[in-house]
């Protein structure tokens, strides 16, 4: 599936599909990668090493720092797939890449066909193009 690339990189990992947008700030514990948002339906689930799929971004403009810190610590997602762009998460990934050389690709496409547990491969370049493919459904 063709997608738009907002932060470049490659990833191949199981998908974690969230039914609701998640604010990384106030929503993710950077030490464990777990969702701590009191009101989120997927509270308790870890995003570490997974391809996080959600409708969009939400909440605090400090989510950039939380994402970048999680990437720095190795508890961040392998990649993020959104159905609408989120500049806050985008800058978090770009800074982590600039400071530490670690990439967390961020892409935008339809998320209807992705399901939790699907093995997904993402290739996102730095000119705006990306490819998102399910290589093994759950």
């Amino acid at each position, binding site marked *: 599936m063709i997608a738009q690339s*907002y*932060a470049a990189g490659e990833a191949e990992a199981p998908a974690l599909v969230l039914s609701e*947008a998640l604010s990384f*700030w*106030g*929503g993710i514990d*950077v030490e464990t990668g777990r969702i*701590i*948002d*009191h*009101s989120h339906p997927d509270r308790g689930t870890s995003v570490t090493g997974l391809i996080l799929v959600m*409708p*969009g*971004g*939400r*909440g*605090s*403009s*400090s*989510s*950039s*720092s*939380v994402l*970048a*810190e999680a990437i*720095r*610590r190795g508890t961040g997602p392998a990649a993020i797939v959104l159905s*609408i*762009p*989120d*500049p*806050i998460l*985008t*800058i*978090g990934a*770009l*800074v*982590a890449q*600039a*400071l530490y050389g670690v990439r967390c690709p961020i892409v935008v496409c339809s998320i209807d066909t992705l399901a939790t547990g699907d093995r997904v491969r993402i290739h996102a370049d*730095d000119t*705006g193009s990306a490819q998102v493919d399910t290589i093994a459904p759950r």
Partner: protein
Amino acid sequence: MLNGEAGEATRFAMQLLASFSRAVGAPALIDITRAHIDGCLYHGQVSLDFVERLVAGGGRVRVPTSLNVGAIDLIHPELSRLTPGEQAPARRLMKAHEELGCQPSFTCAPYQTEFRPSFGEQIAWGESNAIVFANSVIGARTNRYGDFIDLCCALTGRAPAWGLHLDENRHGRVLFRLAGFPASLQPTDALFVAVGLLIGSLSGERVPVIEGLPAPRSEDQLKALGAAAASSGAVALFHAIGITPEAPTLSDALGGRAPEQTIELGPEDIARALKRLSTVPDGSPITAVCLGTPHFSRAEWNRMLPLLRDIAPARGIPIYVNTGRATLQELQDEGSLEGTKAFNLITVTDTCTYLTPILERLDGTVMTNSGKWAHYAPGNLGVQVAFGELEDCLASAAAGRVVRVAR
């Protein structure tokens, strides 16, 4: 700036800004007149790594730049329950921003200070509640800039020509119509918070327009609406017909087009949204009251202090009020806070009680009149929360349990 002529820090900032601009599809950059930095709240080593790199590269902001809350009340450092080891990087982060030329405002409500922008001004602001206030209540123009990018804009004096900086993106697309309310609908704090929570959760990325909101008692109620909408969703701009500056009429707010969707909000929707905010039933004992999220304005203080003296809580339940240091200085210079310690009033500046350890007790229920505080605190602090009007909060401090007195 990209070739390093303006220094290494500016080069680094411009490079990130350029990547970010490409990512959002902006064809060009625009000049900005001011910036508000969200990044001085310590979130981890990355916060310092980023800023120290800019300091080392000789970075200086090119526009008047205010700072959002940090992790420590620098004026009342004894309030912080962070260990010295945790405090050190948080303090360094706040100080490093000053070394870049940022003003030590340390407030989430810069629109209540000398840094308030004017209608139409192009600015780069972080802090979700400040963004929505600047756009909606003032009619200034900013996108949802966050940590890192806000400083890149400040160091370059530029922002991407995208999103809410442009006329065509400021028109409303989803219409919320208050329906089923009596003609005498009163502007209560709870109504504004509930409407904020609802438009936040239902708007997605579309600019919401609200029809039927009663005229607010003050802009602080619009502040509360925006803060709630920016917490439950990603709202950066809302229009309230006949109230906010870009929405004298419905047609103005919608840019002359029909809305993509119309959603009716009735009394049951409001009641349900408010009920979800409280995690305990009425009558539950409380351990604290927290007010001022966003920071209490002078007007809110003027309303609260007479109520506080009247109700005169005497059970020793702490009443924390977050406010900007400039506001606190004013109150202290006037002597307006004299005697309030007797009611266990604890003023907090430079930070906020929901994002750093200040509360003495985390094992009980905290009452608040802030939708934003109620939304974030249970996850951040582990407390239970009860939401009510200001009068309810103060009466509950006096009663030692959740009571409701506001009509």
